[in-house]
C-alpha cells in the first residue's frame, strides 16, 4: 500500500525514483488490490483512470509527500497516507457527494475551503487538512448536525459504530449553542416494516449515503430525498413504508448509513459484535465474501466484505440477512435411524447410526450387487465434503454411482464448454463486466437469482453498455430504473437452439465474423464444416421466426449489435441448460463467442451463472459418475491409477449411474441404497411421482442434512448436517474462485459434515484419515492439476484463488483461454435444432417454465425458515392477462395446473411479464408441487431435466378449499413423518 513518503523504504518500493509522469513497471500501486479492505478511504479508487498503470501524481498533504493515481480525491489521497480527514457523507463505496462539508481542507493557492472528497488531487498540490480555521468550521458544522439529533448515545443501537459520534469527538464538539428546543425531527416516526432493519428518521442527518447506495451499489433507486430544506427526508418509494416500496432489502443502505438511522434489528436487539470472521456466503453462485460479525459464537450480523473479489462489498437480502436458519428450531442435531419409513425415528449415537447404515449398505450390495448403491453430493456443501462423498462412493461402495445436483442444473455447461473450449467452466471474472460493451443475457435472471452480480451488471449498463435479453419472460433487466434492454428476444420455451443458430447465421450471412481470430485460434476444419451447416437457409431468422416467435428483424439487429459493439459477453443460466438440447445450446453459445472473437480477454466471454454456491466446485471435485476430480474420465488408466495409489484401492473403470438413472433403476427394483448429502431430490428433481416411487423403493436411504427435508421423509438413516457457519472448507463460485468458508460456531450436531462422512466410511470398512479440511484440500491439490497450488495457507494469503492455479499460474487464472483454448484450438460444434418432444396439444395448450425469485433460495429449506418469506410466502403462477381472461382468472385466484406428469394447485398472478401461451412458477415451497408438473424429459447429452418446457393446462378452481390429490397426500405424509420425529 502506498504510504507517506517518509515511511517508504526507497530500496524496495521503487517509489524513490518516482517523479511526475510515467514510471516503468513494476507497478507499485494497484488501487483495486493494494488497499486495506477494512479501511474507509472516503471515495472510490479511480478505476476508470485513463492514465497508464503506474502513472502517479505527487502532492503534499500536511507536509507529507503523497503519490497517488490520477483521479484520486484529496480525501482518498490523505487516507492513503493515514491522514484521516473527518467526513460524514463520504464513504469509499460511493461516488463523492460533497454535501456534509466536514471534509473541507485548505489548498495552497486556492480560495476558500473546498471539500476534499470532491476535489481531485493534482500534481504539486499543497494541502492543509488541519488548522484552527478548518477546525472551527468543522465544529460549526457538527454543531448544526447535533442541534437536531437525539443525545441518547449511550443507549443508541449504533453506539460503538456511529460515524456521527466519532466525528463529534474528532472535531472536538463541546457544546451546542443553538440549544435543542427549536424545530427538530426528534419525533419523526420509525419505520419498522422491514423484518431485518429499522428506519429511524429522528437520527437521520440526510447525508444521502443510503439514497446513493440504493442507486450506485444496488441499482434499485428505491430511495430518494423528498421535500426540500428543513423538510428534506429519506423516502422509500413514494413516501411509503420500506416494505411497500420497491426496496429489495439488499442492505446496502444500512451498511452505508453513518448513524443509527438504518440499523439491523439484530444489532438493536443484541448490541455490537465483538469480533468478526471472514467467510463465504452459502447461497448463490456469486460467492460473496462476508464478515460474520460475532458475539461469542453467535452471529449477530453478516456484513459484505469489501475485500471480497466476487462481490466488492455488496450483498443481497439472502446473504446479508437470511442466516437465521442456521439456528432454527427445526434443526435436527441428533443422528436417527429406523427400519422402515412407516416407523418413528429412533435417536441414536453417531456410532450406532454409522454402523446401522453400513450394515444395510453392505447387505444390499451382497444381495443386489455392487452397483445397487450410490451417493449424491451437494452443491451446497464444501469442496472438501463433496470430494469425500465421491471418494466414499468410489472407494468404499466400490462403484462410480456418484452424482450431484449439478446434474439437474449445469451439467450441460460442463459438457458443452469442454467440447468447444476444452474446460468445463466459465471464462471470466465478475469484474470483467466492467469492460463489457454489450452483454447478452440468455435464460438467466440475475437480479433475482444472482442479485449482487445483477447489480454490477446494472451499474455497467447505466454507464452505457448495451443489453440483449433472451428470455420467454420479461425479467427485471428488460426494463428497470435507468436500465433498458436494447433488444428483448422473447422466444418460445424450447427454441433456444433455433435462436442461437439464427444469431450465428446472421453473423456469417452479413460477414460479421472475426476471420482472423478464427483462423488463428480455432480448428479451421471444424469451422468450415460448421459454416457450411449454419449458412443453410433453415437457420435464417426469417425461418426460425416461424417457431421461435422472435421477429427476424429484431434478431438480426441483436446479432449485429453483439458482433460489432466491442466487447461482447454472454451470461446465461438454467434457461439455457435445462432443456432437451441444453448441451447443444451451450455449444451454440460457445460457437457464437468464438465466431466474434469474444473470448480470452476482459469484458468478453461465456459466463454460466451458477445457481448454488458450490455448483462449480461440486463438479470440479469429481462428483459426476464418469469423471474423477478435475474433469478426467474414469476410464483413463493413467489418472485412475494415480487415484488408486493415493486412495489405496482399486477403482471401477466404468462410469456409474446419474441421478436420473439411479431413480429409474430404483423404480425397477435393482437399485436399493443411496447416501444423499445436503441435497433434496424429492423437492428439486422433476416428475415428483417418479422420484417418490423411487425413494420408497430404497432399502437404505441415508440423508445428511440440517433439516428433515422432503427427501429425509423417505430416509432410514438421518445424519445431522452442519451449516456453513459450523465448518471449515471452501466454495468455488461461478468465476472458478475458490474462497474460504470458516467455522464461526461449533456444529450443532457435534460433527462437521466432513467428519460425518469419515465416520460412515470407516463403518463401511474404508478408513479415511484427515484431521482438518485443509488436509483434504492438500490431497485434492496433489491429485488435480488445476488445483496444484491451492492450499489453505495460500487462500489465507490471497483471500481467494481462481483455478487453474498451478505452477504455471500460481496466483490463479482470472481470464481463461487468453493465448489459446485449453483444448488447443477452439472447436465449432454442429448444433442442429431438434424440437423437444414436449409439445402443446388441445389438452395441454400452454407451456410452463420455471425459475427463481430474489428472496427465496432453491428448494427454500434455508430461506423459508427466515423472514425472507415475508416477501414470498408461496409460489404463484404467473399468467398473461389474455390467457387469464380466457379462463376467468384474476390475480389471487386459486388455479389448477396440470401436465402429462401430474397436477397441482397454486394462486395466480396475472402479469404482462409473461407472453400469451406461456406460464411461469417458482419451486421454493414443497407444497406447491412445481415438480409434480415437470416431466422426465432431459438433455440428450447429460440427462439434465427439461424443467423449462412443460405443456400444461391452467384452469380456475371453483372450490378454493380443495387441494390437488398430490397436495392432499403430501400434507398427510408430511404430518405423519413429522409425528415420527416426536417419539
Amino acid at each position, binding site marked *: 500500500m502506498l504510504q507517506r513518503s517518509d515511511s517508504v523504504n526507497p530500496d524496495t518500493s521503487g517509489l524513490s525514483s518516482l517523479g511526475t509522469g510515467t514510471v516503468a513497471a513494476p507497478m507499485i500501486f494497484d488501487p483495486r488490490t493494494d488497499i486495506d479492505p477494512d479501511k474507509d478511504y472516503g471515495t472510490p479508487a479511480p478505476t476508470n483512470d485513463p492514465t497508464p498503470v503506474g502513472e502517479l501524481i505527487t502532492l503534499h498533504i500536511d507536509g507529507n509527500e503523497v503519490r497517488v493515481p490520477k483521479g484520486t480525491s484529496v480525501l482518498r489521497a490523505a487516507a492513503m497516507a493515514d491522514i484521516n480527514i473527518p467526513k460524514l457523507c463520504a464513504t469509499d463505496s460511493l461516488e463523492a457527494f460533497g454535501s456534509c462539508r466536514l471534509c473541507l481542507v485548505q489548498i495552497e493557492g486556492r480560495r476558500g475551503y473546498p471539500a476534499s472528497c470532491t476535489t481531485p488531487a493534482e500534481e504539486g498540490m499543497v494541502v492543509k487538512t488541519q488548522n484552527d480555521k478548518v477546525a472551527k468550521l468543522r465544529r460549526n458544522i457538527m454543531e448544526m448536525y447535533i442541534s437536531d439529533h437525539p443525545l441518547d448515545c449511550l443507549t443508541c443501537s449504533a453506539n460503538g459504530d456511529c460515524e456521527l459520534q466519532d466525528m463529534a469527538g474528532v472535531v472536538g464538539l463541546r457544546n451546542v449553542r443553538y440549544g435543542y428546543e427549536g424545530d427538530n425531527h426528534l419525533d419523526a416516526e420509525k419505520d419498522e416494516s422491514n423484518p431485518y432493519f429499522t428506519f429511524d428518521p429522528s437520527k437521520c442527518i440526510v447525508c444521502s449515503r443510503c439514497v446513493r447506495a440504493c442507486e450506485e451499489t444496488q441499482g434499485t433507486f428505491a430511495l430518494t430525498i423528498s421535500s426540500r430544506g428543513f423538510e428534506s427526508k429519506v423516502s422509500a418509494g413514494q413516501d411509503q413504508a420500506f416494505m411497500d416500496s420497491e426496496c429489495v432489502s439488499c442492505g446496502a443502505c444500512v451498511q452505508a448509513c453513518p448513524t443509527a438511522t438504518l440499523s439491523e434489528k439484530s444489532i438493536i436487539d443484541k448490541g455490537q459484535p465483538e469480533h468478526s470472521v471472514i467467510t463465504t456466503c452459502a447461497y448463490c453462485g456469486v460467492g460473496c465474501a462476508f464478515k460474520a460479525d460475532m458475539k461469542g459464537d453467535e452471529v449477530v450480523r453478516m456484513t459484505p466484505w469489501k475485500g471480497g473479489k466476487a462481490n466488492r462489498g455488496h450483498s443481497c437480502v439472502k446473504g446479508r440477512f437470511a442466516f437465521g436458519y442456521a439456528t432454527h428450531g427445526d434443526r435436527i442435531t441428533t443422528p436417527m435411524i429406523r427400519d422402515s419409513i412407516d416407523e418413528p425415528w429412533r435417536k441414536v449415537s453417531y456410532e450406532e447410526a454409522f454402523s446401522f447404515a453400513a450394515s444395510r449398505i453392505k447387505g444390499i450390495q451382497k444381495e443386489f450387487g455392487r*452397483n445397487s448403491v450410490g451417493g449424491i453430493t451437494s452443491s451446497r456443501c464444501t469442496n472438501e465434503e463433496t470430494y469425500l462423498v465421491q471418494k466414499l462412493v468410489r472407494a468404499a461402495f466400490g462403484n*462410480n*454411482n456418484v452424482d450431484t445436483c449439478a446434474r439437474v442444473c449445469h451439467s450441460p455447461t460442463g459438457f458443452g464448454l469442454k467440447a468447444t473450449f476444452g474446460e468445463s467452466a466459465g471464462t471470466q471474472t465478475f469484474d470483467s463486466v466492467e469492460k463489457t460493451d454489450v452483454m447478452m443475457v440468455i435464460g438467466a435472471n440475475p437480479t433475482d437469482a444472482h442479485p449482487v452480480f445483477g447489480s454490477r451488471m446494472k451499474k455497467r449498463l447505466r454507464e452505457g453498455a448495451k443489453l440483449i435479453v433472451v428470455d420467454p419472460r420479461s425479467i427485471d433487466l428488460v426494463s428497470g430504473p435507468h436500465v433498458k434492454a436494447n433488444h428483448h428476444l422473447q422466444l418460445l420455451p424450447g427454441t433456444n437452439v433455433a435462436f442461437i443458430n439464427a444469431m450465428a447465421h446472421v453473423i456469417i450471412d452479413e460477414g460479421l465474423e472475426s476471420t482472423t481470430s478464427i483462423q488463428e485460434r480455432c480448428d479451421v476444419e471444424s469451422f468450415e*464444416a460448421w459454416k457450411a*451447416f449454419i449458412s443453410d437457409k433453415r437457420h435464417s431468422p426469417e425461418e426460425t421466426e416461424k417457431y421461435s416467435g422472435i421477429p427476424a428483424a429484431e434478431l438480426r439487429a441483436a446479432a449485429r449489435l453483439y458482433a460489432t459493439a466491442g466487447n461482447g459477453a454472454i451470461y446465461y443460466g438454467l434457461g439455457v441448460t435445462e432443456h*432437451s*438440447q441444453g*448441451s*447443444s445450446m451451450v455449444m451454440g453459445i460457445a460457437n457464437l463467442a468464438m465466431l466474434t472473437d469474444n473470448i480470452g480477454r476482459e469484458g468478453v466471454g461465456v459466463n454460466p451463472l451458477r445457481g448454488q454456491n458450490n455448483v462449480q466446485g461440486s463438479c470440479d471435485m469429481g462428483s459426476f*459418475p*464418469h469423471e474423477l476430480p478435475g474433469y478426467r*474420465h474414469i*476410464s483413463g488408466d493413467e489418472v485412475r491409477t494415480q487415484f488408486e495409489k493415493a486412495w489405496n484401492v482399486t477403482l471401477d473403470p*466404468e*462410469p*456409474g*449411474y*446419474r441421478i*436420473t*438413472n439411479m431413480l*429409474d*433403476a430404483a*423404480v*425397477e427394483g*435393482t437399485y436399493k441404497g443411496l447416501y444423499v448429502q445436503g441435497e433434496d431430490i424429492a423437492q428439486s428433481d422433476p*416428475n415428483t*411421482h*417418479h422420484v417418490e*416411487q423411487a425413494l420408497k423403493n430404497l432399502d437404505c436411504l441415508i440423508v445428511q442434512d440440517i433439516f428433515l427435508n422432503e427427501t429425509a421423509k423417505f430416509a432410514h438413516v438421518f445424519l445431522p448436517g452442519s451449516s456453513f457457519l459450523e465448518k471449515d472448507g471452501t466454495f468455488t463460485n461461478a468465476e472458478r474462485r475458490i474462497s474460504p468458508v470458516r467455522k464461526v460456531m461449533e456444529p450443532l450436531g457435534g460433527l462437521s459434515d466432513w467428519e460425518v462422512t469419515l465416520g460412515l466410511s470407516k463403518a463401511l470398512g474404508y478408513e479415511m484419515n484427515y484431521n482438518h479440511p485443509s488436509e483434504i484440500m492438500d490431497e485434492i491439490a496433489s491429485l488435480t492439476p488445476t488445483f496444484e497450488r491451492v492450499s489453505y495457507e495460500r487462500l489465507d494469503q490471497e483471500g481467494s484463488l481462481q483455478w487453474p492455479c498451478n505452477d504455471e499460474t500460481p496466483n490463479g487464472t482470472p481470464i481463461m483461454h487468453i493465448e489459446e483454448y485449453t483444448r488447443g484450438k477452439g472447436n465449432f460444434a*454442429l448444433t*442442429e435444432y*431438434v424440437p423437444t418432444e414436449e409439445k402443446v396439444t388441445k389438452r395441454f395448450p400452454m407451456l410452463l417454465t420455471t425459475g427463481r425469485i430474489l428472496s427465496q433460495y432453491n428448494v427454500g429449506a434455508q430461506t423459508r425458515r427466515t423472514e425472507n418469506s415475508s416477501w414470498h410466502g408461496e409460489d404463484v403462477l404467473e399468467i398473461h392477462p389474455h390467457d387469464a381472461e380466457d379462463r376467468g382468472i384474476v390475480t389471487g385466484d386459486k388455479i389448477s395446473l396440470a401436465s*402429462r*406428469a*401430474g397436477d397441482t394447485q397454486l394462486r395466480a398472478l396475472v402479469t404482462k411479464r409473461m407472453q400469451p401461451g406461456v406460464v411461469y412458477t417458482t419451486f421454493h415451497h414443497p407444497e406447491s408441487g412445481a415438480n409434480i408438473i415437470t*416431466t*422426465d424429459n*432431459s438433455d*440428450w*447429452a*447429460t*440427462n439434465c431435466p427439461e424443467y423449462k418446457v412443460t405443456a400444461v393446462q391452467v384452469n380456475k378452481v371453483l372450490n378454493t378449499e380443495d387441494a390437488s390429490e398430490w397436495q392432499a397426500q403430501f400434507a398427510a405424509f408430511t404430518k405423519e413423518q413429522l409425528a415420527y420425529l416426536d417419539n
Partner: protein
Amino acid sequence: MSTNELSHLVKMANQIASNIGLGSTEDEAVDKVVNHISLFWARPMREKICANMQESANDLNPIATKALVQINAKL
C-alpha cells in the same frame, strides 16, 4: 407419468442419435453414438438396453440400433 427404465433408455439413445450424428456419414454417426454411450452410461444401463433390443426394435431409430449392436458386442 412414470416411464419405465427401458423406455427411458430407448428415448435417451434416440435423442443422442438425433443430436450427435448430424453432419456425419452413417458410420461416423454410429461411432459417435457408441462413444457417447460408452463414456457416459453405466454398464447396467448398457446391459439393460442391449438385452432388450428386440423388445425395443420398433422404438429405436436406425443409428441408435446400429450403435447398440456395437456396444452389445463389447459388453
